[in-house]
């Protein structure tokens, strides 16, 4: 993959990455896997939350007929509180994803 035989000195990860050596690819593959794992985790958290609601309402019909402050509970649940929750999930994900990038940058540049 690399352009020619490199010099014998130990090479920085940054160079390996820039030249696309097998070593550099391993670093990158590790980052991609970590990011993907985080994304799937966040997806699972969100999907479990929203995705379980239709089933919950369906399997527990009493919930559909329950009123809270004059509004049916399912309407109340769907109309408002899920939107802030989505923002919170997004915010948590963003922090973690930026941190993963940060760690990678530290590993690759400070060695």
């Amino acid at each position: 993959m690399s352009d020619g035989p490199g010099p014998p000195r130990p090479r920085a990860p940054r160079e390996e990455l820039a030249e696309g050596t097998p070593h550099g690819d391993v670093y990158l593959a590790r980052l991609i896997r970590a990011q993907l794992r985080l994304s799937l985790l966040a997806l699972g958290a969100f999907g479990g939350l929203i995705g379980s609601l239709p089933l919950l309402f369906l399997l527990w019909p009493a919930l559909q007929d329950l009123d809270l402050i004059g509004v049916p509970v399912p309407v109340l649940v769907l109309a408002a509180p899920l939107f802030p929750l989505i923002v919170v999930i997004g915010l948590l994900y963003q922090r973690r994803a930026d941190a993963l990038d940060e760690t990678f940058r530290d590993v690759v540049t400070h060695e």
Partner: protein
Amino acid sequence: MIAAAAVVAVAAGAIGLGVWGVRLVRTTSDLYVASRAITPWWNAAAISGEYLSAASFLGIAGLGMKLGASVLWLPLGFAAGYLALLFFVAAPLRRFGAYTIPDFAEARLSSPHVRIVAAVVVLTIGGFYLVPQLKGAGLTIGIVAGTPYWVGVVAVAALVALTVALGGMRGVTYVQAYQYWVKTFGIALPACILLVYLGGLPERAALFGHELPHAPADGLVVKLDDPQRVEFPTDARFTLDGRQMRASAGEERVLKGRLVLPAGTAVPVAEGTDAERGEDWARPVERSGPSSPVFVYSLLLATFLGTMGLPHILVRFYTNPDGPAARRTTVRVLGLLGLFYLFPAVYAALGRALTPELYVKGQTDSVVLELPQAAWPGLGGELLAALTAAGAFAAFTSTSSGLLVSIAGTLSHDARRVRPRGPAAGDQPVERMRRFRWAAVAGMIGPALIALAARDLDISVLVGWAFALAASTFCPLFLLGIWWRGLTARGAIAGMAAGGLVASSGIAATLVADPSPTTLGALLAQPAVVSVPVAFLTMVGVSLRDRERPVGTDETMLALHGPEGLGLEALRARG
């Protein structure tokens, strides 16, 4: 009159900002992606402004009044789509630095063929998303100014084509951000003021479907200028043009003239309206029918995965300076959309109580426009109606111009002969800008003609199709292209073709034949739950059997996922 003035004021503001934007436009790079230097808040407001279309502003409330709580899944999916975009697409795609989806497809898979397929899909989704916006324009301008349908369509089509052709995206970014706030105030302020004015939910709205919508205490008068087929849910006495008549439960009648229903009579509903009865109206899920679990999950899937594949949304992410900024922008978008989507449901609940005549006319789509004056007769209601009219106007103009930017970009970029390498290759900026402007005008003509002809097509059907199509084509292209090295050009083409075909044939079947309230009917009307897996499996399957791997996948992966500030720019310049 006040409403017309508000619409004119919004339009003037948009044009003013567009003109102001023009003076900032220097190069083609500005024209396309606003130099990638707009702050996350501006960007988030612009993305939200572009995204909140006539379907969000008018459609959700209208459908909610018609079908009830099952419609609440729709705004949830619309907002959550940005979560999928955030998790899988926003940062990598921004780093990659392609201008459009076809650019991404070609550069990632090193194949001009996949670019052409992607361009065709962009034009299809964009065109079909544009039609219902123009239709909404025709209806809204018709209500506000009393003009025929075609006047609104033509006027808005011309206005949008002009803004895009003259301002490009730099102008449009500020215009879109401004439009977001016009829309949010336009829907939130009237909703809040009406709730305060009415002292909370009026008695009949608070019943949440425990009763059928019925005529208020002083009776209900509906003027039917055209013959209207309606169904009476219960036995009813009424007068039509002064003649006493009666109808029995379940009876269908064709009515024309001045219909007077005495107090407490359950209103007849227009054919196709199928206002849900009784307590079902307040239930988000049922065992069968339009809120069956299959339909709900399919809808959630289409909106969740389809958002990332809407061509006019992604192009806006390139105006973020880098990957982390793209993430920050997306989180802000989630907040801004969440704020907006709190309010359409208010109109649906109030509309069921206060504007039952819309059920008779089959025009629940205009509840946002008509509710203020019905709830608060007089100057107050008129002022609030002016706000909602201005918001509706902002909704379809902003989405239309966003769509037109991507349609014009694709037309001017891809309709020419395929060039071997990425976006910046070769030709003169002036020439490209000229081509973009012509493409903006040309790209509007087709959808405008369809909108003129397709007055009766349901807004939500077309918008739903666009989402299902995007989820079955571009979503797998992005997810696999960004996260899986093994995707090949053949796999991508086969997957997009398979997913697009399954999704389109389902929708086409629904358009041709009336949907039946069965599981199969739900699947045809909202095919994402089938077409998305088909697209993914085809892409993976064909790619695995394909020996012809795209060149430079390692560099591509580094460009997609490598964090900023590694000092690897030399490599990317070389690649």
